[in-house]
């Protein structure tokens, strides 16, 4: 196992904590940068989706995993980002400006949805965000002149400074660059005062406010940043599919996004990526398994069942998700043979004063 001898406070806040980190993330970087060399067209397409979902996952993780505010309406922010991008591209706005607008419009929508969050908690907030999702879906279906209604809108490939990103590889590098940027922004936020305030709100609103955290401001901020990231994801999503229509942004899509965060591991940025990989790979595994299934089983129905089942199993047996499972496996080998079964079990909290809730 590795002992890190700390001689400087900076060692606790730097990005790369030790040589092992540098090696593995470096390796991941090289493998990803070389993806166009080793990946088939099909795998490339899946990688696009994984990266796009990761960005959205970071956004939702920031809100649900770190600030503790649930959202059942993130597909609506995805829609705001996607339609902003589609409309602006049609109007001839350069990509860099349009994607920034997609993020900003989404963030603005997020801030507005954040307002009820100041008063609502838990289930009630879930219902409020769910309602928002339904409203946005309705608006993009009905506002035919702007969004094209159910006929949807088509997008052209991304064009940066007159250079068209038409091949899979070019679009992949764009997604990769944006994913890395969003990831860095999240890491930076989480190691600075704002991120700490988010975590404080998640763990105990009452103490957070007694320590000077302005609950209203930070909750709104969390919603806005989360929605902004989702908007960036939405813009890329629109380009990936080259066609957007209201049925891509339904409540089910929101639940799928929440599944990413929960399966990946709530409260870890790694979880957003792992969850995205899982949710993209699972349908492929199911379609592989199809050959062994009795004839006449519909793969789409099977997928919904498998998702539901896996979600339930995870919540019962591994509430910390894939990343939590990985942490346990790693600790097992690091401490071998001293790993104890109850090591990650959280001690039940001592009596809390519920008078103050």
């Amino acid at each position: 196992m590795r002992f890190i001898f700390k001689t400087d406070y900076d060692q606790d806040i730097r990005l790369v904590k030790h040589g092992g980190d540098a090696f593995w993330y470096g390796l991941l970087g090289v493998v990803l940068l070389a993806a166009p060399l080793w990946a088939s067209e099909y795998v490339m397409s899946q990688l696009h989706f994984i990266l796009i979902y990761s960005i959205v996952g970071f956004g939702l993780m920031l809100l649900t995993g770190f600030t503790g505010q649930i959202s059942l309406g993130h597909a609506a922010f995805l829609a705001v980002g996607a339609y902003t991008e589609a409309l602006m591209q049609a109007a001839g706005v350069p990509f860099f400006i349009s994607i920034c607008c997609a993020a900003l419009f989404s963030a603005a929508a997020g801030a507005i949805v954040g307002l009820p969050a100041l008063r609502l908690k838990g289930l009630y907030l879930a219902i409020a965000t769910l309602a928002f999702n339904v409203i946005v879906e309705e608006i993009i279906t009905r506002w035919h002149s702007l969004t094209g209604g159910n006929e949807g809108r088509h997008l052209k490939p991304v064009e940066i400074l007159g250079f068209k990103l038409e091949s899979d590889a070019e679009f992949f590098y764009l997604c990769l660059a944006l994913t890395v940027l969003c990831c860095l922004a999240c890491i930076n936020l989480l190691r600075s005062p704002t991120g700490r305030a988010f975590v404080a709100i998640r763990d105990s609103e009452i103490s957070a406010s007694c320590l000077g955290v302005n609950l209203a401001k930070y909750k709104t901020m969390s919603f806005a940043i989360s929605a902004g990231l989702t908007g960036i994801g939405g813009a890329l999503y629109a380009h990936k599919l080259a066609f957007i229509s209201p049925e891509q942004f339904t409540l089910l899509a929101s639940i799928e996004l929440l599944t990413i965060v929960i399966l990946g591991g709530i409260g870890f940025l790694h979880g957003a990526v792992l969850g995205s990989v899982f949710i993209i790979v699972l349908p492929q595994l199911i379609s592989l398994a199809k050959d062994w299934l009795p004839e006449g089983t519909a793969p789409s129905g099977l997928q919904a069942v498998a998702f539901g089942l896996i979600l339930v199993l995870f919540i019962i047996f591994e509430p910390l998700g894939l990343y939590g499972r990985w942490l346990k496996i790693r600790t097992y080998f690091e401490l071998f043979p001293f790993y104890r079964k109850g090591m990650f079990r959280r001690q039940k909290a001592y009596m809390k004063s519920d008078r103050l809730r």
Partner: protein
Amino acid sequence: MSFFRVENLGIRFGGVVALDKVSFEVKRGEVFTIIGPNGAGKTTLFNLIGLLYAPSSGRIVYEERELTGLAPHRVAELGIARTFQNIELFEHASVLQNLLIGRHRHRASSLWQELAFLPAVRRAELAQRDAVEKVIDFLELAKYRDSPVAGLPYGARKVVELGRALATEPKLLLLDEPSSGLNPEETDDMAFWIEDLKKHLGVTVLMVEHDMNLVSRVSDRVLALNLGLTIAHGTPAEVQSHPAVIEAYLGGPA
């Protein structure tokens, strides 16, 4: 100019008068204790000062500024920190992270600087860490620095909560039953720390406490409450021997 004073403070929950016409003044640099049997209104008084409740009548004045009506987070920004009777720590975070959140009111960076983690943010973070390490040294928390709070023994959690309040560098510290749930040794340590932070850090302490040994050892002045009313006010010895206090705790003659 008074440092901190409460004038005619009262609050009622429906028909229950939890506090009525409570007035006292805390001088800069002293330890002021509020005692009283269960249900006397001590914690209610704290929650009023922390602006978690709005008073039905009266005023709270801190450094000649009226506190009533401000948002709760403003209290911390003005330099008032508190601990809770039943501990309200950030369970899933380490001791270090808990104390760092205590530095929130000293943050200086904007959101955009933080998203890019500019050198200024890094410098500020290192300075915050430095300040937190001073608290860790002061309260001898070094061995728990990186442990998650959820796994710590009760006594240690109590000290972490004190540390988190101290990390805000308060001028006025509100301690809600600092010794509840502590064993005699830990209570002794707590008494030392309260004396030290008064002497060395110059923090004014306003506390609610049951343990009369601790009260008479550290407090300069004591206020006794019963059923929301002030029954005695003075030095620890005076209050302890006051007939109304004895009656409140032990019951009156039959």
